[in-house]
């Protein structure tokens, strides 16, 4: 389990990250969303033990990550621009990773060679950007980390590569209970992969939600009455309400059955309960706490 408490990071006088609390359980694929400059990369670098927080604590299974050799051997960070030593081939890089990460698995490395079909003796710098990205996953997953931290991993990748990489991630999560933290500025890019979403805006945590809960929890109700009953949805959390002519549109949080029951009691002329896309849920959720989604995400 990964836990962040009262974390803050200042660059000079600017507060770049200021987070009260995050908790990520093992086996989670956690999507960290935020626009450019929201503080995602800084947060991820702190989570990876690269930069030191100005204050606060980051713990993996109760131990702090910064300068912690044993723990860092179980964490791999892939930055938005993968870095490789100059003039290194995949094979040479694998030697380097093998020495650094004791859990590096030879069989997996060879298996990935069949999947990615890249020449291990060629210098990595001669590869295209997409290929380089694959190499970084190849090496990272061969190291069999318990925690994989990815900064904008799908930026600028084509659909095929994207799919391939997502599958590899999911397989590791399923097989080894790996925890993955993925940052992105685009919700649609990660919604099929993540089971938990956190949104960061101007260094502060705006919201974090379990996606499965969200999808079953939030409902769009289109409803019309002769006369609006006073007590409609009084016992529920209404995220949004708007009126178009005589038709009311409510976004309501709650169990579907309870909502249906409540509606039946109010005797509507017309009623329709619709599913919401993840994006819509976030738009309304954040509106509820005073943020406009299009300001927070691109």
């Amino acid at each position, binding site marked *: 389990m990964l836990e962040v408490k009262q974390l803050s990071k200042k*660059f*000079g006088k600017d507060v770049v990250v200021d987070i009260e609390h995050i908790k990520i359980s093992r086996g989670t694929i956690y999507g960290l969303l935020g626009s450019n400059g929201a503080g995602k990369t*800084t947060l991820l*670098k702190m989570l*990876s*033990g*690269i*930069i*030191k927080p100005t204050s606060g604590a980051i713990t993996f299974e109760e131990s702090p990550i910064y*300068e912690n*050799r*044993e*723990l*860092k*051997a179980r*964490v*791999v*960070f892939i*930055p938005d*621009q993968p*870095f490789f*030593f*100059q*003039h290194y081939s995949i094979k040479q890089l694998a*030697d*380097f990773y*093998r*020495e*650094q*990460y004791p859990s590096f698995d030879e069989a997996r490395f060879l298996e990935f060679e069949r999947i990615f079909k890249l020449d291990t003796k060629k210098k990595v710098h001669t590869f295209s950007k997409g290929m380089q990205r694959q190499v970084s996953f190849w090496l990272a997953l061969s190291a069999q980390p318990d925690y994989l931290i990815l900064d904008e991993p799908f930026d600028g990748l084509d659909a095929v590569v994207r799919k391939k990489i997502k599958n590899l991630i999911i397989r590791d999560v399923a097989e080894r209970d790996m925890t993955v933290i993925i940052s992105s500025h685009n919700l649609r890019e990660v919604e099929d992969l993540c089971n938990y979403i956190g949104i960061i805006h101007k260094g502060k945590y705006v919201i974090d939600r379990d996606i499965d809960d969200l999808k079953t929890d939030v409902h769009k109700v289109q409803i019309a009455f002769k006369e609006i009953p006073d007590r409609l949805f009084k016992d529920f959390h209404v995220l949004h309400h708007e009126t178009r002519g005589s038709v009311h549109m409510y976004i309501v949080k709650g169990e579907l059955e309870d909502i249906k029951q409540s509606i039946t009691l109010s005797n509507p002329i017309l009623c329709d309960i619709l599913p919401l896309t993840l994006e819509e849920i976030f738009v309304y959720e954040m509106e509820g706490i005073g943020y406009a989604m299009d300001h927070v995400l691109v």
Partner: protein
Amino acid sequence: MRWIMSWYKKELTKQNFRLAGWLSVGYFIVLFLTIILGQIDLLTKANENPNDYHYYSDLMLHGGFIPAVLLFIMPTLAALVLFRYLHKQDASDFIHSLPSTRLTIYLHHIIFGVISLVLPLVLTFVSLLVVDQTLDHHHLLSITDITNWFHLSVSTALIVFSVSVFVAMLTGVTLIQLIFTYIFLFLPVGLTMLVVFNLNYALPGLAINYIIDDVIVHFSPLTDINRIFMVSSMDWSKVIIYYIVTAVILFISYFLYKKRPIESANQAIVFEALKPIFIYSFTFSFTLIGGMYSGAFGYSIPVLFLMYIIFSIIGYYISQMIVDKTWRVFGKVKQYGFFFLAMTLLTIGFSFDITGFVNHIPKIDEIEEAYVIDDQYSFYQREAYYGRQAGFSDVDDLEMIQSIHQKLIDSADRKAFLGYGRSIIIMYVLDDGSELVRQYTVDDEVYNIFAQYNLQHHPIYKTYTDPLFYITPSRANKIEIMSENYNYKSVSITDRAMIVELIQLLREDTLQLPKIEDQHDMLNYLTIHTPGEQEVYIDLTQEFHQTLAWLSEQDFAKEALILPDDILMIKVAPYNEELYYDAIEYEKAYDDNELLVYDDLASIEKIMQRLSISQEEPQRMLMIYLKELSSPIMRSVDDNFSLD
């Protein structure tokens, strides 16, 4: 051993080798080509003809200029390449995301750097030993020479490397690391020089002590480069200090590395707290450079202040540009305001001499001893070697010195130190053991005021300025008395008792010598030799009464001195500057009618007795012909010389 094996990262070392290994290989190739092949060549030639071999105990001289310069270039390059990752954000992120602590990473880089520098030197060292053993048939080069060269090179290379690593930790830009490595190496001397130079404007009388100069130079191997070329005997203490300082700097650098914010790659200065320090000290240095610039061109005081302001503004904005890495810094004026205020207060403080530095003359009862020194270089050299002789301590003498000092203060000029005048130092040793030293640069006019005091004839002055009074008589091993003109006569005295006796007489005579214009020349001089020391040279005059009497007593006079008996004749011609001191030219220019010729013993004796030491404009030329020698001794004499 297992601990080391688990700690040691082979692949990290491989990566370092790929980065910096070529430097090490290249370094060895250069050392091989210059020093090793150079030695082989020299020794082979020497085996054919030993006289061909020029022995220098310092091997650096054999290798020439290149190995010495590389001692300052290679370590910086190694540090630059090895710590480049700190200055590139992606590389820095990657390295620090690995499961290695900063200590592990640092040690891998440092150890690799040290080995990459030392290994070529070790290989050269071993090769030299082999070359020496196989080729040096005449034992021209000793193993000590080779060992000295090795330690000198290693200690210098390591200290430069450590300074460059230190700078790498402070900055996030490789170019700045390069530049500031050399600035740091030059800093002790550079800054002292600048400060002292500028203080001279404010405090006439400020002494630039040779000793201080001497000491500061040793603070950095860059300014101490003399040592590498000119070392005659190895200064082991310095080598050891260099090794220790290297270790200390590398240790401090590790703590900086631990504290260093990784995210500040690409920033000129990575520690926030250092930024204002950098800006103020950079501006301050530039201000002082302005003062020096003004001094170099001899500008007047108002222009000096203008230069201070111009240079401080330039320095201020350059430092801001470095810190912010942008041209757009001209809106920042607050810090300059503080600087300007502080400098103004400082300048006012110094100019109005709030500490009373300029006009301070210690009171008689505070003074233990006093010295007036007009040849500071010799004085400090002798003091450093022999220890100090007693100075003036008589109340009358001290009052005289105070009055000289007062005159010097009254005539002191803020810009005098820029000129080429003579320098006079007044040094007081006070009751509490402290020293008060003032130095004045004086023009001829002021020097004449000083000269009127006739200090040169004061016995005390003589004892602390004349080397004759510094040497230890019992250590001298030879006194040579020689005559001019190809050692027409010469005698060596090597008997220790005689030497001691003669030095004593020379000292007594020296103290009693009249003024120089009242002395009478002889054609003889004398040197006192002490092993390992510079010889003491004395021009004998006829006023060295006791010495001359002793020489006669010991029967040395006839052998050692040119006496009237030895002179064939003396020709006297009018002095002619254009003929220099060339006898043949004089003979050509004047025929025998124009020359006065004296060849009788009585006349010769008379002329020789009157042979005064020419102080004024020369009037006549004496051509003294010695027996059995064709070319005469030439002596010009002034008006004080008369033939009547």
